[in-house]
């Protein structure tokens, strides 16, 4: 087993894909302490303690229903949309309480962008999809919007493919393009964090590779938290990995360490494919 992953890690070094920041000295972006979470009538997360470093990629792995997506959605308070759910414990973003009653949710979601499992472009033009965030933030300046569109589409490696059809429907793009459009859309609000919920699960290998390259590029500027079912993908793109099992955080740490020398038996079983 470790052969497979050690291949990946050696390949990463060859590609120059290893962490660009000094992982040891990175500033913490999120800090979670004793986080418990309940859906109406049932607890979903137990006592999660986790720190997420700035400008790094954290992969959340674990079997289906282990709570990794739930945890991801706590970070931009998307779970608030569900009636009757409840959070306990501390989550800090840049040292301020994420769940403080005075927190401006709209501001929070602008700073913590999110990309969903299934691409969800709005039924609007490519251009309008990208400028959606700035527009709802009140930006009216056409030059600024144009600038944003070009910048974000370039960042999302989509510019060359769509620059001549900005005004046509976003729904006409291919699946992989749509997902990159959604990433570009998230970047348009200048977030500091990008949450990705299995962003490549519905895509073919070629599109997946593009998204992974993109993540590697984006982490220079953004803190990225990605949920994935794909072990190789986690090993390929992330700096840190956190393994969830049945609503608990079993183990977290540097990706290379988790994948090659896991300390917990459950982690090793999962990574080697013995369950899940």
């Amino acid at each position, binding site marked *: 087993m470790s052969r497979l992953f050690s291949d990946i890690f050696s390949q990463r070094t060859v590609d120059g894909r290893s962490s660009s920041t000094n992982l040891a000295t990175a500033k913490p972006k999120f800090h979670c302490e004793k986080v418990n979470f309940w859906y109406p009538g049932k607890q979903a997360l137990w006592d999660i303690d986790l720190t997420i470093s700035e400008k790094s990629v954290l992969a959340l792995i674990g079997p289906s229903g282990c709570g990794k997506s739930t945890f991801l959605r706590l970070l931009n308070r998307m779970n608030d949309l569900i009636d009757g759910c409840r959070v306990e414990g501390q989550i800090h973003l840049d040292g301020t309480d994420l769940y403080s009653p005075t927190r401006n949710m*709209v501001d929070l979601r602008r700073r913590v962008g999110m990309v969903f499992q299934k691409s969800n472009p709005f039924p609007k033009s490519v251009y309008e999809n990208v400028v*959606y965030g700035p527009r709802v933030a009140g930006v009216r300046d056409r030059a600024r919007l*144009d600038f944003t569109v070009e910048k974000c589409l370039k960042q999302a490696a989509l510019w060359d493919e769509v620059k001549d059809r900005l*005004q046509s429907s976003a729904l006409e793009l291919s699946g992989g393009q749509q997902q990159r459009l959604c990433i570009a859309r998230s970047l348009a609000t200048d977030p500091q964090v990008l949450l990705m919920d299995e962003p490549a699960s519905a895509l073919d290998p070629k599109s997946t590779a593009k998204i992974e390259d993109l993540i590697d590029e984006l982490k220079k500027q953004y803190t990225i938290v990605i949920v994935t079912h794909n072990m190789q993908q986690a090993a390929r793109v992330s700096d840190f990995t956190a393994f969830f099992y049945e609503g608990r955080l079993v183990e977290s740490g540097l990706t290379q360490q988790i994948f090659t020398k896991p300390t917990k038996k459950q982690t090793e079983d999962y990574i080697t494919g013995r369950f899940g």
Partner: protein
Amino acid sequence: MSEPVAAQKPPSPAGDVIFRLICQACGMFILLVAAALLGILVWQSWDVLSRIGEYKMFTSTDWNPDQRPRVFGSWVFIYGTLATSLIAMLVAVPLGVGSAAFLSEIAPPWIRKTCSFLIELLAAIPSVVYGFWGLFFLTPGLQKLFLLLGGPPNTSGQGILAAGLILAIMIVPYVTAISFDVCRAVPSSQRQGSLALGATRWQMIWTVVLPYARPGIIAACFLALGRALGETMAVTMLIGNVRYIDFSLFASGDSIASVIANQLNEAGSRDHRSALVALGLVLFLITAMTNLAARFLIRQGAKPRVRVNRGPQSLTGPANAPAEFGPLVVSESQWKRTARENRVMTWVLGFCQLATVVPLFLILGYIGVRGASSLDWNFFTELPKPPGQLGGGMIHAIVGSGIIVLLASVCAVPIGVLTAVYLHEYNTHPLTKPVRFVTELLGGVPSIVIGIFAYALLVKPPAFIASLIASVPILSYLMPSGFTAWAGVFALGIMMLPVVVRTAEESMKLVPASLRQASYALGATQRQTVMRVILPASLPAITTGVLLAMGRIAGETAPLILTTAGSNFWPRSLYDRTPFLPGYIYEYSKSADADQQRQAWAAALVLLSAILLLNILIRVAAGRRVVAASRAD
């Protein structure tokens, strides 16, 4: 080798064939009815249509049926119909869409449940009850408002605006219910995508949910418009019934449906009758077009349409190459503005919801209070007393209404269900598509047009048909002339037919395919499968639909005025004039006689309670039963 082949033969091919033929015949019957409807309308209006210039039908505002030369300029009525519908749409669409957005996106589940139930009740109130309430509650209020606003002093409160407002109240439930459904159907990934980009809830509703739901909402508006255009009783009671056009909002007017209801019975000359039928044809064509537009949009509805610019596809060249912009910073004042906008619009949407359901309480409350104080035991035991004698009742009308509605259902349900079987089971037949289309079309025909059809075919048949009836004895039983209960049953039955077909087909679709396959796998024929498996499994849902439809036709007034005409005595046979409860509400509501007004309130209360009770019971019972039916596997 011949033995096994014989064993594979279906048990009773003749039965299967006969069953299929019966189902097909029912489907053909609907085509026949629709063809007859259109045929009668065209034929009976041909006198005027063929000399349309001479009668100045569409070139004049002068409607003069009594003096020679007769002219039938119908712009007064066309204007009245369009103006009232326009007012209704202007009020109902924002309110309906607003409250649908509120229910779908903002309201907590218990409000959503309660309000959607109340809105369904509002849709079940009969037109004549709206009109009655409008006479006593809306128009005196409007008159005071007019004077307060400095309108012309010579206004009586009735008119275009009053009729438009009552129409608005009547169609809001339709707009709301359908828009709510389409809003709910917007994928939640769209909402989350929007919120995750920092949109407020209002921004999400305005920029994502409503645009996504737009085709469905437009369809809802068309359906509601079709209903507003064809509405008769409430309009005729409130519009003022005058024969001139005055473009003031305060002015009286008249509508197409209203003038038909008022004059068809008293049209003496052939061309007068012909002109009224021609107006009916116009109404039929307009409503058919709106309904077709709605159906078309609903069928398209699944996919949202994308508004794209046809302009330059790329950013405009290097000349425009922008200077670097810093990261997006949102100013404090912008924050506050967005947040305030969100707060205000949440309240506005909540207010839309409130404004939508408040009329229900006003109507229920007003009629409840006045009706309860007017209701006594005599009402359920006596016939009407002559003027000046107190204590009459309306038992004969309650019974009469019951008989007509039951008979209409008895006629419409088997035909409707078998048509649905035809549409659902024999859908390879080349005529299923036309039958389904015609059924949908028939469902949108205004009740007054059905009334004209029954009147022109049965009550006062044209000479050709009359002589045909006289020469074929059996026809005189099937098509007795004059005002008869049978003509009313015919009209209401036709109104009910499309509803039954639709519910039955929809509920048959809910029966799991596995059930049907199991039946066929056991060697059952198609007829056996339908009769023993599919119909029993969909029966609860069909029953629910039929009961709801009965509640709807129980309050119908306009077609019955033209067909059964009412009576002061017990219903006697299918070939007599027959009393019906809504007719008395219409007749007594306009009276100045306190005793008759009391009777009208009591009648309205009884009718309303019966219909609402039926609706409530169905919903309480159906929730479980429909689910049970769809879980038949």
